[in-house]
């Protein structure tokens, strides 16, 4: 679609069983696209914050937020403005590194991207990196040549810059 773009939807929800299923089920049922979803506790007791990355045009986005708002367990929904939002994702990359030379290259790359080596074995290194998704993609591309054994990404979590809260 021509006006399709990526949206970051932040939702404050009751932290209780079934909420994730309700939200995820809504996306499936209404044929909304879902790129990633993260859930964790929030600053309010008994409530969790979900960050959902979705693609769609304005009309789809409007439907997503309205339908989410209809869920009884959802307290608040906000479509975060892309430009004024900090987005961070955590990624673990297990890279094949059997030789001294490769190991030092991988460590250098990780360093450039402010990643950390969090696990070492004779055959592999595991990098931990946080950042926005583009940065992580770039690092993954750089180390792909060495052979990637495994990747685990959380998907972005996000909040507005500055004093603004949702």
């Amino acid at each position: 679609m021509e006006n399709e773009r990526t949206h970051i939807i932040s939702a404050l929800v009751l932290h209780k069983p079934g909420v994730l299923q309700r939200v995820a089920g809504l996306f499936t049922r209404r044929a909304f696209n879902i790129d990633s979803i993260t859930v964790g506790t929030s600053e309010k007791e008994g409530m969790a914050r979900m960050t959902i990355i979705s693609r769609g045009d304005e009309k789809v986005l409007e439907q997503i937020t309205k339908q989410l708002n209809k869920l009884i367990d959802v307290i608040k929904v906000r479509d975060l403005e892309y430009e004024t939002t900090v987005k961070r994702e955590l990624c673990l990359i297990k890279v094949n590194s059997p030789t001294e030379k490769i190991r030092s290259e991988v460590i250098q790359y990780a360093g450039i991207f402010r990643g950390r080596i969090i696990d070492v074995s004779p055959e592999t290194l595991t990098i931990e990196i946080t950042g926005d998704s583009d940065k992580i993609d770039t690092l993954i591309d750089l180390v792909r040549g060495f052979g990637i054994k495994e990747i685990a990404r959380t998907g972005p979590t996000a909040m507005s810059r500055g004093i603004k809260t949702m």
Partner: protein
Amino acid sequence: MKGGQAIIKSLTDAGVEVVFGYPGGVLLPLYDVIYDSDLRHILVRHEQCAAHAADGYARASGEVGVCIGTSGPGATNLVTGIATAYMDSSPILALAGQVPSNLIGNDAFQEVDTLGITMPITKHSFQPMKAKEIPEMIKSSFYIASTGRPGPVVIDLPKDVQEEEFKREKDIKMDLPGYKPTKKGHPLQIKKAAKLIIKSKKPVILAGGGVIISESSPELLKLSETIGAPVTNTLLGKGSYPEDHNLSLGMLGMHGRKTANFLVDECDCLIAIGCRFSDRTTGNVDEFAKNAKIIHIDIDPAEIGKNIEVDVPIVGDAKNVLNALLEMILKEKMNLNTEKWLNHVKEFKNACIPRMSYNDVPLKPQTVIKEIFETLDEDTIVTTDVGQNQMWMAHYFTSKHPRTFLSSGGLGTMGFGFPAAMGAKVAKPETDVVAVCGDGGFLMVCQDLATIKEYDIPIVICILDNRRLGMVAQWQKLFYDKRMSHTHLGEVPDFVMLAESFGVSAERVERPGEIKDALSNALKSGEPSLLDIIIDPEEILPMVPPGCGLTELVGEYKVESEVPGEITYHEKSQEKAGE
């Protein structure tokens, strides 16, 4: 107090007098409490009928209808009824049994993930894991089901929780921070709408089910008369506006009245109230009301802009909004002049009065509906099934009052009409209730003849019997080269004998003029009865093919003015009937 007792106490506290249910293994603790309670329990013969009956009860009364089914198959049998209520915003509470909590997830006997299955078809759902949670959950369920845009709520009740002892609090508080339905419309939006209405020369009002739910029929009537706008309705909006009023256009849509379809196309301002612009109502959305500015009033913000782009959205309860809108229109310096438009409406309407007078045998459905209408009091509640019977009723039957025309609109559930009539009669014992069904839909739920007999629920079932899945057959005839794949239902059963085997009195009607007597006798008898009305299987209702604009009707739209002065009786030849 035990969990089961808390359930019954909470139901009666909520004002529930009757429930429709079917017991089962995991519901034994609850049914043991029901055994001693004053709560009236109606034992249906299939859980789907419990859900439809609760739905019919809710639609007829405006109160929450309650149904009960056991775990596993009991719950899955409720599903169709829950989905039906969901699509039509009907407030029901479905209580489902569940296996003991320590067995949940083990694929125990009669275990099914009821919450998971019903999540997309409920407004909300609960599963108490401790008996102490029950009172608040039931109280919240009634509040959620009946407020805002109403809808079904499911409570999944593990067996052990029904048995657990606990101390019930005196004050039951609800904690629903995420649920705050909007009631009042935004004043600026209402002002915009008022200005648009005052400016318009050719306004039309489209009334949906929301008008009935919010009980704003008087406001609707006042608005239409104040601004001089004719009123069309959706299927679920039928009865929101008196259809014998000179401003009524009848139903809009795929099977709508020609008058409504053409005038909506022509209008310059469409005021849509409590409707969701279903594809069956709008036809091709690009063609829909293309000359009009659209005002959309709905309590559910998600309905605004979902199917149709609108010019002035107003989120709020229809009653509140209409009152505010009326006040504003009356306050503004009024210079409404729709006289020219109304003359045009009147002329066009008179030219398009659909033909209902026939003398044919087998009976034309139009004539059947005409005779049914002429027999019934205007406050009689009629229910329909789904398919041709439903559309003939929607098209030809004149409804005058809200909550007197009950039909499964959104889900289109065959088998709805009969159990819904049962529920409506239980809700309104003093009112006549007539179910108009097709033979196909009725056969799906006919086992509940036992229920209306055993509990003496005196409804009259009118089967429009054409031995066809008429609507599907109609589409095959029109769009699938007359290849009648699996739409002929054959010669069995004999519906009269079927009814009589349940002790329900029944009569077969085959000729014009016979329905009135049969129907009024059945109503007078005060007993449940069935009329097997044999109709012409070839008759089709003109329609808008899917994907077309509302004015692109196919099929000859026969009008009453073509009726020859004296209808001569003629027996239809067998060859013609078998075409």
